[in-house]
């Protein structure tokens, strides 16, 4: 992990240059430019809001559009960082075969690119907060840490996935499907408090309820999305009980994912 951090520092100029290239290339000939980056969360927010008007979802007095938008921001950042990260090795074949630098630069670059789009999401969120007359509290200072944690989760998937994708291109095909399923297993459309109430307070699954709630929280995004909403919209500290299972999973899996990546890296140029 320390070597990742060191590489990140040593190759910061390269990562930034490649990220800049990604953004410029993507939006250069588009008239709306970077606005396209926020079209997706905004559209999803509108659709979810429409759906919500048919089915009741308890939101604890927070306007549903802003609640779901605050969920979509970390979710889409995670989803796209992972998906793009998994493709990042195979889509840079020319560079991989010609020039050496640590290959984790590619998944990292994919993430930094998405970070820029996330930043634009914050502008929309700020506009929504002004509209609903909500003020951020000091708890908002947790947000950078939550985003950093989201990056670790995305890296866990993209390091392992991108290396495996060099050998089996099935990975890049399967991942979007799995991720779109994972969205329903994460508190994006509904708030985590709903799950918590059902399982912990009402014990809806009988004796399995507590275990099921822990299982739900092994998905790190559950804790991330909930904390993101709490810190920004509710002025509350993160719920560490919901963060813990996912955090343990990440701490265990990230080093394994990185080791696999470094082991596979030697053969990228031969296999790709």
């Amino acid at each position, binding site marked *: 992990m320390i070597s990742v951090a060191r590489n990140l520092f040593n190759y910061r*100029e*390269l990562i*930034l*240059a*490649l990220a*800049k*290239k990604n953004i*410029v*290339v993507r939006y*250069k*000939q588009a008239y709306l430019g970077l606005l396209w980056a926020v079209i997706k969360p905004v559209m999803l927010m509108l659709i979810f809001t429409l759906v919500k008007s048919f089915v009741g979802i308890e939101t604890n007095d927070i306007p549903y559009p802003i609640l779901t938008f605050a969920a979509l921001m970390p979710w889409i950042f995670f989803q796209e960082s992972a998906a793009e990260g998994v493709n990042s090795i195979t889509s840079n074949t*020319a*560079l*991989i*075969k*010609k*020039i*050496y*630098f640590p290959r984790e630069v590619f998944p990292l670059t994919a993430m930094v690119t998405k970070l820029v789009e996330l930043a634009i999401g914050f502008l929309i969120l700020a506009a929504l907060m002004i509209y609903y007359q909500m003020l951020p509290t000091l708890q908002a200072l947790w947000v950078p840490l939550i985003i950093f944690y989201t990056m670790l989760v995305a890296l866990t998937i993209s390091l392992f996935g991108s290396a495996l994708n060099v050998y*089996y291109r*099935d990975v890049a095909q399967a991942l979007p499907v799995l991720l779109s399923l994972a969205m329903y297993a994460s508190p994006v459309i509904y708030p985590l408090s709903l799950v918590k109430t059902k399982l912990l307070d009402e014990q809806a699954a009988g004796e399995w309820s507590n275990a099921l709630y822990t299982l739900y929280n092994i998905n790190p995004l559950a804790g991330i999305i909930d904390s993101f909403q709490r810190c920004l919209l509710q002025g509350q500290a993160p719920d560490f009980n919901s963060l813990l299972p996912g955090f343990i999973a990440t701490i265990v899996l990230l080093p394994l994912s990185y080791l696999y990546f470094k082991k596979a890296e*030697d*053969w990228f*140029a*031969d296999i790709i």
Partner: protein
Amino acid sequence: MAPIIEVKHLTKEYSLGTLTSAKDTLRHTLAKLRGKNTWHRENFKALDDINFAVEKGEVIGIIGHNGAGKSTLLKHLANITKPTHGEVSVRGSVAPLIEVGAGINPELTGRENIFLNGAILGIPKATIRDKVDSIIDFSELGKFIDTPVKRYSSGMQVKLGFAIATSMDAEILIIDEVLAVGDLAFQRKCFNRMEELIHQQGRTVLLVSHNIRQVERMCSRVILLNQGQIIADGDSHSTCDQFYQLNNKTISGQQDNSTARITSSGEVNIEQVDILDENDEPSESIIEGSTLKIRIRFTSEKKLTQPEFHIGTHTTDFIYLTGESTALLKKDFSFPAGTHEIEQHIPNYPLVPGSYGIRVAVIDQQGRVLFHGESLKFFNVTAKTDNAPLQDELRLIATNVAWKGMPSS
């Protein structure tokens, strides 16, 4: 001081055949777990036990036929791929110019690409900012520099790539076939830039090229690879000479497979063409400046009255060099039906060392071509001495000359 590059027993194997499916991988892995190895794939040795060391400041050429392993070797030095066996240690920063413009993105402008490629090649941004004007200047792009590269002509793209690639300050430069870029004037400029990098700045350079003359001129030492092995490693002249001979051998080796170019009316057939040495024994080569004796055995179906024999030599790319005809003999002769042998002798065959082919034509009294064949036999002219003069290959014909005005030392 330890050598800047050290390669020990480097072997690289690639497995032949198609990609393995997940099913096969699973099957083989399961079999392996049960203690059986079902993995039988044919391996190809791209590099086979390569050993060499490079001192700082050396300029080394790597030559060899296509598929000899040159680029694979460079990839190991640039850390792009890892050896199957053996060890490669490089003590210094490496700048790979393996292919000019590998990192050029068509959507970005020339200027943006300069910064992007600089970052890819590990040049700090501040350094590029200092150099950007000289890079633009060298690339000759001028007002096009802020236009997306996708709208450039291919020549402009190559110029940009070369200008970026040669502007960095690495200790070791790895160059693979990049000098042949752009038009003649730009090639000249590239060549000068390379020489400047090599000679004035004292860098360590590895150069791969099929342009042997260029390698010979720029490098102090040349490594000759053949089928993944080093077959020569030494001063550039003798190694390049060895490569020429290897080349010639390959070409004459092809003669058996690719048939000679023959047109024949069927009445006369050339059975055998031989080169004879001074003892009149068949040989494959003669020494430069000695007598070339060509012996032809032919069969005629009927009596040949006053035929004309035309026997000549040509280069491997069919430039006719010599060619003399029996018509000039002004002598009547005829051959009865059957097999006969004739010889042509050229005293002091004037061609420089290389591989040459033999051409024979048989024409009857009426001027009808009975037989014409090229590449009927290949032979080598070998150098007179082992230490041939420098630039010995920069000529085609050896002549006797007299020198004047040379004071004795």
